[in-house]
């Protein structure tokens, strides 16, 4: 369900249960990089966010996590929705954000613009949430790494090869670097910094 423009959307009806359910999906998605987990709750996403994206945001962000929104997501509806339901500060600079929200998968900013964490505190890095119209395991790039038995094929509609190359570059800095969460209309997957991404060469 999508809230009408200008009207404040409904958040979680049962915040404790809904957010733990979504958190479990996100946790599993990160544990098994590339696997697509369904999530379906009742948060009414403000345009242009999908319900999956708003579920993830309502679950992960709070007053202590500054959020950066890309130009597509940086609307009054989204800002007031996040402020009302989570109380999070909204920042202009990706570097000062704990979470980045990218509503346009074909224009993901360079991951190096986000907070990378430090070798002493790699957990202080940002998490970037990229919204796509479709996630699929039947084509695309190859994920390898912890949590993947052999290899995992993955594609997010709209993501360019150069973005995947940037995600691979982000991996090379391990253990510092950002984690990427990918959301579809009603599902979530993840590409944490531990994953090696291979953009398949044309044979």
């Amino acid at each position, binding site marked *: 369900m999508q809230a009408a423009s200008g009207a404040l959307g*409904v*958040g979680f009806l049962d915040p404790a249960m809904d957010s733990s359910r979504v958190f479990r999906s996100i946790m599993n998605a990160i544990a098994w990089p590339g696997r697509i987990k369904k999530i379906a709750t009742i948060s009414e996403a403000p345009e242009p966010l999908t319900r999956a994206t708003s579920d993830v945001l309502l679950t992960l962000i709070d007053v202590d996590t500054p959020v950066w929104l890309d130009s597509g997501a940086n609307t009054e509806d989204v800002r007031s929705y996040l402020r009302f339901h989570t109380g999070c500060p909204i920042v202009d600079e990706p570097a000062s954000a704990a979470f980045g929200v990218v509503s346009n998968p074909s224009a993901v900013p360079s991951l190096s613009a986000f907070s990378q964490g430090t070798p002493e505190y790699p957990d202080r890095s940002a998490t970037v949430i990229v919204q796509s119209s479709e996630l699929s395991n039947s084509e695309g790039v190859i994920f390898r790494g912890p949590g993947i038995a052999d290899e995992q094929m993955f594609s997010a509609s709209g993501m360019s090869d150069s973005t995947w190359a940037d995600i691979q570059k982000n991996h090379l800095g391990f253990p510092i670097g950002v984690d990427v969460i990918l959301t579809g209309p009603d599902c979530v997957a993840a590409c944490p910094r531990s994953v090696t991404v291979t953009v398949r060469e044309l044979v």
Partner: protein
Amino acid sequence: MADSGLNITRRKKWMAVLAKADWEQLDTLWQQSKLKQSYDLVRGPETGLIMAQGRMGGSGAPFNVGEVTVTRCTVRLAESNVLGHAYVMGRNKKHAETAALLDGLMQDPSLGPRVSEDIIAPLQQVYAARRQHMQAKAAATKVDFFTLVRGEDD
């Protein structure tokens, strides 16, 4: 929507009246008014704690009095998309929900006056009477200190 300073003052007043009202009376008045409105719960009703602050004599430095149990609720009216908010002391979720709904209705130009007359005014009367009673009781304990001028400073 309440935007200007005057509207905010008015809204503060009715929200206070709704929050401080006796639940039984609020419910009775609401049932009697026969107003019907469909709405969505945007947040809550949910119960939590807030830190209440006080000022000695109403003007001293603020200090923490203690934590207060508060139930809050936000509703969105189905037709107009208007938001109604309520923060009510205690754990009565129905009270918070009804108060939020009435806050929403009060902002409606056509329904507002009716709600004001049928519900807010009677509640305010009871509240004013209760407050006056408390004030009279407190005033009876007032002690005036008369100090004789000793003229030492002259």
